[in-house]
C-alpha cells in the first residue's frame, strides 16, 4: 500500500513537471493558435543558457556566491528567452499569419532545429549541471500511516511546489491582468482583437516570452534533476499527451492532464512494465491520451468544436 502511494506521489511530482512544459504549449496555442513543437527546444535552450551563465557568473564572482550567480544567470537567461521570443515573432510568426495549422506546426519544428543548433553552438553540447541548491536528500513521511513510511524526494517536492506556484501565477496573469485579457482576446479572434486595438505582434512576443520563462523554470528543475543535456529537447514529446488530455486551450487542463499522465506513467511502468519488458511509459501516456480522445475529442477542458452547415 505504502509503495502504491509512493509511486502515486512520485507520479504526481513528475506530472507537475509535465504540466510545466505543457503549460508552455497551451499558452502559445491559446494566443497564436500555433502548436509549438519547439517548446522542448526552448526548454533545452533556456536550461543551457541558465547552466552556462551561472557557471560563468560564478567564475566571474570568484566562485563564492553561488546564489547571486544563479540570480544573475536567471535574469540573463530570461533576457535570452526574450530575444528568442522577439526574433521568432519577427522572423517567423509575423510572416505566417493565417496559414493552416500544419504549416505553423512545421514552422515550429524548424524553429526547434534552429534553437537546438544555436543553443549548442553558443553554450556547447556536453552535459552541464544546474545547481540552484535544491536539497537532494529524501524525507520519510506518514510513518504513522504506513509502515516504513513513504519516501519523498525533497527536490521533487520543491519542484512540484514551484510548478504549482507558477501555474497559480499564470492563471492570475491570464484572468486578471490586462495583458492576460488581451492574450485571451487574441486567442479567440485575431481580427476582432486587432480591430479593438490590441497589437497582435506585441501580444505574441509577450506570450512567447512568457512561454520562454516557463520553459526556463522547467529547464532549471529538470536540469538540476538530471543535468542539462540534449535529451531535454525530447521532454516536449513527453508533454504532448498532457496537452491533448487537458485540452489545447486550457491552463487548468494542462495541470490536471499533467498529473493524470504522470501518475498513469509511473503506475503503468511499475505495475505493467515488468510483464512487457518495461520502458512503456512513453507510449502508455500517448495511448492514455488517445483512448481518452476517442471519448472526448476536444480534451478535458477544451472548447467543444461544433461544425455549422
Amino acid at each position: 500500500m505504502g509503495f502504491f502511494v509512493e509511486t502515486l506521489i512520485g507520479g504526481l511530482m513528475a506530472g507537475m513537471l509535465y504540466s510545466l512544459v505543457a503549460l508552455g504549449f497551451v499558452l502559445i496555442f491559446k494566443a497564436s493558435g500555433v502548436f509549438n513543437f519547439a517548446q522542448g527546444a526552448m526548454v533545452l535552450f533556456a536550461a543551457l543558457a541558465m547552466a552556462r551563465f551561472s557557471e560563468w557568473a560564478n567564475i566571474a564572482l570568484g566562485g563564492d556566491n553561488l546564489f547571486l550567480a544563479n540570480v544573475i544567470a536567471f535574469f540573463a537567461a530570461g533576457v535570452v528567452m526574450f530575444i528568442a521570443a522577439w526574433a521568432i515573432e519577427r522572423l517567423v510568426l509575423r510572416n505566417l499569419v493565417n496559414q493552416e495549422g500544419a504549416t505553423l506546426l512545421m514552422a515550429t519544428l524548424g524553429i526547434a532545429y534552429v534553437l537546438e543548433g544555436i543553443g549548442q553552438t553558443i553554450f556547447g553540447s556536453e552535459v552541464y549541471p544546474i545547481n540552484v541548491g535544491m536539497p537532494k536528500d529524501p524525507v520519510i513521511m506518514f510513518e504513522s500511516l504506513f509502515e516504513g513510511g513513504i519516501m519523498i524526494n525533497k527536490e521533487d517536492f520543491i519542484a512540484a511546489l514551484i510548478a504549482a506556484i507558477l501555474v497559480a501565477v499564470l492563471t492570475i496573469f491570464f484572468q486578471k491582468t490586462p495583458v492576460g485579457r488581451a492574450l485571451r482576446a487574441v486567442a479567440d479572434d485575431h481580427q476582432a482583437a486587432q480591430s479593438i486595438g490590441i497589437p497582435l505582434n506585441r501580444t505574441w512576443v509577450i506570450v512567447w516570452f512568457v512561454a520562454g520563462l516557463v520553459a526556463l523554470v522547467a529547464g532549471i528543475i529538470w536540469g538540476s534533476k538530471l543535468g542539462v543535456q540534449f535529451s531535454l529537447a525530447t521532454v516536449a514529446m513527453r508533454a504532448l499527451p498532457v496537452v491533448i488530455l487537458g485540452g489545447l486551450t486550457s491552463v487548468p487542463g494542462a495541470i490536471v492532464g499533467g498529473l493524470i499522465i504522470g501518475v498513469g506513467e509511473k503506475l503503468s511502468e511499475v505495475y505493467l512494465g515488468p510483464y512487457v519488458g518495461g520502458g512503456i511509459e512513453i507510449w502508455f501516456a500517448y495511448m492514455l491520451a488517445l483512448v481518452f480522445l476517442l471519448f472526448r475529442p476536444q480534451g478535458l477542458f477544451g472548447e467543444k468544436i461544433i461544425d455549422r452547415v
Partner: protein
Amino acid sequence: MIYRENGQFKTTYAADQQIFTIAQDKVFVLGVIAFAFIGIPLLADEYMFRAILIPFLILSLAALGVNLLVGYCGQITLGAGAFMAIGAYAAYNFMIRIDGMPLIFGLLLGGLASAGMGILFGIPSLRVRGLYLAVATLAAQFFCDWAFLRLGWFTNYSSSGSVSISNLSVFGWGIDSPLEKYLFCLCFIVVFAFVAKNLTRASIGRQWMAIRDMDVAAEVIGIRPMWAKLSAFAVSSFFVGVAGALWGFVHLGSWEPAAFSVDRSFQLLFMVIIGGMGSILGSFFGAAFIVVLPIFLNQVLPALGHLFGIEISTAGISHAELIIFGSLIVFFLIVEPHGLARLWSIAKEKLRLWPFPH
C-alpha cells in the same frame, strides 16, 4: 514556350481523362523516366547510388504515401516513421519465417501489414481533427519504437536488437551492387507513382479531397467519412510500409528501430510540406531536397570554414546543419507555403502562356 497545343483536341473522354493531356508533358515525363533507367546508370558512381539516389527513391515512395494521407485526405500524421518500421519488420518476419518467400511478395506483405496497422491507428481520425490527430499518430510512433525494441519476437530474438537481411534476389537475379539496388527501387517507385496518380484522379481520390476540403459537405453528398479516411490511412500506410521495407532491406541491409524514429516521421512530413501537399510530383521534389541538403551542407560548410580560415569541428558542422536546415524550412513555409510543386506548376503555366505574362 515549349508548348504547342493547337490541334491537341480530344474526341473521346478516355483521351480527355488521361494522365498527361498535353503531348509535350507526356514526352517530357517519359524522357525523364527513360533517363532514370538508362542515363543515370551510365553516369552515377557508387557513392551517388548509396548516398543519394537510393535513399532519394525510397524516401520519395514514403513521402508519396504520406502525401496521399496529408496532402490529399487532409489528415496530418507524425507517425509515418512507425509505418516504415512496421513495413520493414513485417517484411523481415515474412521473409525469415516463411522460407522461399519471394522478395517482392515479402515487401508487399510488409506493406499490407503496415496498411492494417494504418487502419487501426487511423480510427482516432474518425473522432479527432487536425493537431489532435497529429499527436494521436505520435502514439503509433512511440508504440512501435518500443515494441520493436522490447518485444523480441519481432526481431527474431536477435541479441543485438538489430536485424539484417542478406543476399536479396528477384527471379534468381541477385540484387547486390548499388546499381542493381537502384534499378530495383526505381521499378517500385515508378509503378507506385502511377498507382498513386490513378488513385488521386479516380473516385477514391475525389472522396479524399472532398473530405479534406469540406468534410461536412462530403458526407452530405454521400461520402462515408469512415471509408474515405480509413482507406486513405490504409493506402498511405501501404506505400510507407513498402518504402520502409525497401529502406531496411535494400538501403540499410541491417537496421534497428532507431532507423525509423520520430525524426524520420518529421522528415517525411517536411518532404511533403516543402515538396507540396496534394501533389505527386511534389513528393519527389521534397524527398530530393531533404536528401540532398545535408549532404550538400556537409560538403560546403567545411569548405566555407576554410575560406575564412575557421576550422569547424564535426559537432560544429552538425549544429550549423541544424540551424541552416531549420531556417530553410521556415523560409520555405514563408515564401511558398504550397511547396516546390506550386512553383513548378506556376512555371508551367507561364510556359504555356509564353510570351504573355498572364
